[in-house]
């Protein structure tokens, strides 16, 4: 087998193994019949909204406020998603509408 095949295969296998490891770790630490400590349970309760908030920031991490268009397309589109969602609470409308606006903004308005 050639290295053009083996190298990418090995890279994929390593990334797959490491990815699974991160997903498996909490179960390995607190899984095996052991009672989940109260502290961990509390974290499991309180973490989701905090993690989702961090993921929103993660999605927008590439936005540069200093360089034109100064993050305007992103912030306008996020505002539209939020307003649509607060108004109708329809996931598809909020996501579809916001994405469409974003595509128009970066393809036609802030070129």
């Amino acid at each position, binding site marked *: 087998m050639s290295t053009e095949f083996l*190298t*990418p295969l090995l*890279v*994929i*296998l*390593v*990334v*797959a193994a*490491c*990815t*699974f*490891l*991160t*997903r*498996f*770790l*909490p*179960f390995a630490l*607190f899984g095996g019949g052991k009672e*989940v400590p109260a*502290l*961990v*349970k*509390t*974290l*499991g*309760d*309180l*973490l*989701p*909204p*905090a*993690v*989702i*908030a*961090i*993921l*929103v*920031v*993660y*999605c*927008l*991490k590439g936005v540069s406020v200093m360089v034109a268009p100064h993050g305007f397309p992103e912030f306008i*589109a*996020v505002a539209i*998603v*939020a307003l649509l*969602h607060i108004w109708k609470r329809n*996931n*598809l409308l*909020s*996501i*579809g509408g*916001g*994405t469409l606006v*974003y*595509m128009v*903004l*970066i*393809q036609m308005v802030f070129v």
Partner: protein
Amino acid sequence: MNTTKKKEAFKETLKFAFIQTVPVLFGYVFMGIAFGILLEKAGYNFIWAFFISLIIYAGSMQFVLIGLLGGGMGLLSLIVLTLSVQSRHIFYGLSFIEKFKAMGKWGWYMIFSLTDETYSLLCGMNIPKELNEKQVFFTVAALDQSYWIIGCTLGAVIGSFIGFDTTGIDFAMTALFVVIFIEQWYSYQSHLPALLGTICGVASLVIFGPGAFILPALIAAVCLLLVFKNSIKIGENQEVCQ
């Protein structure tokens, strides 16, 4: 339970799970197509796209991966990079230890397939009483991965022939997280976790930059939540993530 009833129950489960996963369907298919196109351009065909989305199944890491397939990065660096990009998954499992444990061998697939989006859906779902929660969980997880595989493979096959300009279509992912953020805002009595998360995320981004902010942000959020845990009133609506 007889076969007809089982079939009926499965149909109901599938229907409920499908409706729940529609936003992910759009996000994953479009993100997947974007990934497939980029992978094709890097010289790897749809079989690679299928294989990668089947065994790695991770959005941002797969995009990072494209640049690494040719080799050149040392094994240790590759491991550290993957672990840090994926480190947020360590926190996701905490919410589901009991639930996945109770799912037996199906739980292994749940652990494997706990992506950002599947995690968010499992957290936010209000499952009707007549449906089996474990079946719903598994169906949601499997549907999500199937969308991702379809998107990635499709992207590598036909992506380069798409006629219109798809630039910016990946914003669907951002929009999905914003929607989930708002849904959680409504369902939690205390907004402090969401606010702390936002503050930690933004502060860490400013301090550490876009390449390295997520792990410090998560650690800071965990520490602050532990500090403030007694002053946070736990809402009544959070039935799933306990």
